[in-house]
């Protein structure tokens, strides 16, 4: 039997540090798109709660309970990150495996918000986008999902999900922005 070797979306492009900012690849575990069938949002939420401790998130919200993250990811859909979805969910919602579809990176450091302000058109100030927020938006010309992980309260950090195929562009865009923010800090 042959053995297939897994490769991560960003590979050896990451991690990298620029100034006080660190960009690192993140393994969120299993990623499942949960899209409740007609009239099943509440039942799905209950089942999610029973099995994984998280409910179905409202728009713009990310919920974390231990190793399970559940984030809103568009109209009537959420992304369950961490465990494999419980079997009870299958009859309530369309479950689609997306574990390999997203390049997931974490940008942290005091300059992170400024770096993203060069690429992302939404308000990411702490007051407007506190931990527990999620948004589908743009990063440069790419569509991305951005969240502030509820676990990230100690420092400024953003989790960014982009198409796996765009990982190279994602890292390039972020690195460029990070370098410019760092240069600005240096210039004073």
């Amino acid at each position, binding site marked *: 039997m042959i053995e297939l070797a897994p490769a991560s979306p960003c590979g050896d492009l990451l991690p990298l540090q620029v100034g006080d900012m660190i960009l690192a690849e993140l393994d969120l575990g299993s990623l499942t798109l949960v899209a409740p069938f007609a009239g099943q949002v509440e039942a799905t939420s209950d089942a999610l709660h029973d099995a994984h401790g998280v409910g179905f998130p409202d728009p713009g919200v990310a919920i974390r309970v231990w190793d399970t993250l559940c984030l809103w990811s568009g109209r009537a859909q959420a992304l369950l990150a961490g465990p494999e979805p419980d079997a009870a969910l299958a009859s309530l919602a369309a479950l689609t495996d997306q574990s*390999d579809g997203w390049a997931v990176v974490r940008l942290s450091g005091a300059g992170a918000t400024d770096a993203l302000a*060069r690429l992302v058109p939404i308000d990411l100030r702490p007051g407007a986008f506190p931990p527990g927020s999620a948004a589908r938006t743009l990063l440069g010309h790419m569509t991305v999902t951005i969240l502030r992980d509820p676990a990230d309260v100690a420092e400024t950090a953003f989790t960014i999900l982009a198409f796996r195929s765009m990982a*190279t562009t994602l890292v390039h865009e972020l690195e460029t922005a990070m370098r410019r923010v760092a240069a600005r800090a240096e*210039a004073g």
Partner: protein
Amino acid sequence: MRIEGRGRIDRTREVKFLFDGVVRAGHPGDTLASALMASGQMLMGRSFKYHRPRGVLTAGSEEPNALVITGHGGRAEPNRRATMVEIHDGLEARSQNRWPSLDFDILSLNDRFAPFLGAGFYYKTFMGPGKTWEKLFEPLIRGAAGLGALSGAPNAETYEKAWAFCDVLVIGGGPAGLMAALSAARAGADVILCEEDRDFGGRLLAEDEQVGGQPGADWAAALAAELAGMDNVRLMPRTTVTGAYDQGTYGALERSGQHLAEPGDLPRECFWRIVAKRAVLCAGALERHIAFRDNDRPGVMMAGALRAYLNRWGTVPGRQVAVFGNNDDAHRTARDMAAAGLEVVALVDSRHEAENLAGDVPFYPGWQVTRAHGGSALEAISLRAPDGGERRLAVQALGVSGGWNPTLHLTCHQGAKPLWDDRIAAFVPPEGAVPGLTSAGAARGSFSTAACLREGAEVGAEAAGALGYATTPAALPEAEDAPYRLRRLWAVEGKGRAWLDFQNDVTVKDVKQAAQENFRSVEHMKRYTTQGMATDQGKTSSVAALAILADVTGRAIPETGTTTFRPPYTPVAIAAMGAGGEGPGFAPRRLTTSHAASAARRAPMIEAGLWYRPSYFPQKGERDWQVACDREVRMVRNSVGICDVSTLGKIELQGPDVGRFLDFVYTNTFSTLKPGRVRYGLMLREDGFVMDDGTTARLDDNRWVMTTTTAAAGQVMRHLDWVHQALMPQLDLRFASVTEQWAQFAVAGPKSRELLDGLLDAPLGDFPFMACGPVSIGGIDARLFRISFSGEEAYEIAVPARYGASLFHELVKRAEALGGGPYGMEALNVLRIEKGHITHAEIHGRTTAFDCGFERMVSAQKDCIGKTMAARPGLTGPEREQMVGLRPVDGLGRLTAGAFLFNEGDPADRIHAQGYTTSACHSPTLGLPLALGFLRNGRARHGERVRMVDHLRGVETLCEVTDPVAYDPEGGRLRD
């Protein structure tokens, strides 16, 4: 020359820079204009049309004269205002619009012909037959006139764009802006304070006055430092707010790295989009000129600018100074000059009743300056007494003040017109014209420092209060509160040319002539004379010009009105607005999991949508792509080829109603498809034309996976969303794109089965054409589809993308062991043309299912999107161009895509066109060129001959019309 003891520059350090190739020196804190003035260089530019010598007129971004090019080659930037260029070591600046040099400019001869070159001269004179204007006169005139030129080299500088968000945006960091920011910030609002200058303080930096018991500039610096220490305040110096747009969004240009000798990774400029809930305009006011004969001589400056150079930079054009004004404020210049020990030769105030506020200086109330004398530098002025007597005085500098215009531009960016305030003889902002934007201080026409401080504090508190913050306006420091008194004077009567718009060489006479020739509307006057155009947009001249127009047309100023204020307030480089979009930044790159392996094999990449796909895999000794392509085609036909097909769109559908949904979006029936089977489907747009094609597999009862073409993946997904949400919301199904989740590879060729049997964990068993099912590779769950685009026995195998690179490596290795290998887009294309399979070359948006020969795929048993519209008259029948195959009659002639088809003997013109070709290739399998195309009534014409003419490439070939399927028409190879 420098004046000891004056100015806020750092005299302990020297900065060296180049101007027109000569090394000059200045100090940190100097602008290019102040450093040049200090070194005795008053001549800084040549005028647009007459190439008249010009010096610096102002001390701000409104500067019309002192325009320079900085940098060189790809880093050159034209039309920078010397008043805004901060000098730094290594700065290179060149003057513009002169040849061969600034001091000796041949085209200044134009000035001698000035009597002939007035407004409208070109339009009237350079008329001629045919295209003489565009071809001859215009290029000549444009060559002789103009401002700075681009280098012609690609821009080597970097720029960036960024977003910012705040509760209150304060535009302008003078006394009003600082107080507004302080009031709003103390209330708790998130504040952004943008200041065009390097330093905060506005006019306080240029004045000798006290605020709160200390020099105004010190007070401003202390307050700016206090604001900088607040967490909810963001200070943005060197940032000009350039436009007010919808929803509280403001454009702003920051000169982020331009002032640094070594900016490193810091871009030259940053274009900001600032989204603010409230905004406060504290942009101050701009001084205006008074027109008199030769008032453009270098050394004649705005009175406020003259004292700014003295007070802020410690420099003046010369020792002997005069001031000419129509208002009290001009007296400050005379006062400051005298206090600095300069010889104030005259304070000329056009108002008879004026009192001397400047102390012990020669005072000329009721007098007017009638003329400036000199060439490239001011030498003297002529004065006229109220009784008509003349006097001539030697001076090197003259400060002129015709009053102040509030900087209200942003308030008019959404279409409003400013309001005329007779009290100050100036336009003031129309309040409320931009939602959420209010103005304060000089920008609102309140000119004293005390008024600026008071209004700023009030408006800043108001803005924060409107957002729910509890506010009390900040306490006001004590400051100057002199009344602003003036009597309007736009131009001094007299002979000769009196200049209004320095940047475009427009005189009082030009404006009068425009009116005489019936260009009486201010918009017409502007176009006729060019007043108010170019980089300064008439900031120092527009009000005077329209006032003169009002006078000569016998109208009041408000009745005459202004031209339209549009963004940007100051010039913004396209490079800044488009930052990040240059080169590969134009679009994200989508790379397959096999990309690195393909690149390692030196496969040239071809773009398909955003994807990069290998064109072919060159091998040693292959002289061109055709050789490689032919080899890859033969490889697939004879052994086995591997191709990454992950780029095709993959959409997973789940739910009880998927079958019914697919029946509606596809022309053919899918609800009858059994689990474990795949079906080819065709989708129409609502107008009945083909949108896309592809296969859909039913993995099990509940789960289906649709494939789309690479290019239309996004379009199909959007279409499905539209159909589900808008047309069939009653159907219970959900779908999601899984294009990124699965890496998918075609394994095609007679040895494909052999390859798979060695690869899969369990033998495949019975797996007929158009079957699908789960398989396992190395313990990994994979999906296998037996589908074929090549016409050979072929499979597509999908694994989670993390294993894509590894699987591709394994597949290629095994294929090579069987005499096969990877194949690219070129071979893929040849294989499908041989089989007559369509791509978007054929379904290009103007072809129907009927045209493509798929009429029977439109099910008669059910409705589907596009079915009714496809049945419209004219969309079926012999008149339609129908898909056919083409091959050269002689077996050799060249076939090209995009050529037209004609009947033999017909002329090759539009009227006789019978159709066109869409795809062409050399078929190594059949040993001859093949093409696909659309031919009128083509299906009935198999066996006939048509002439293919490619007018563009000059190719003409006699072709035989055939069935589109040239190879294995029975399909035996893919089934058995």
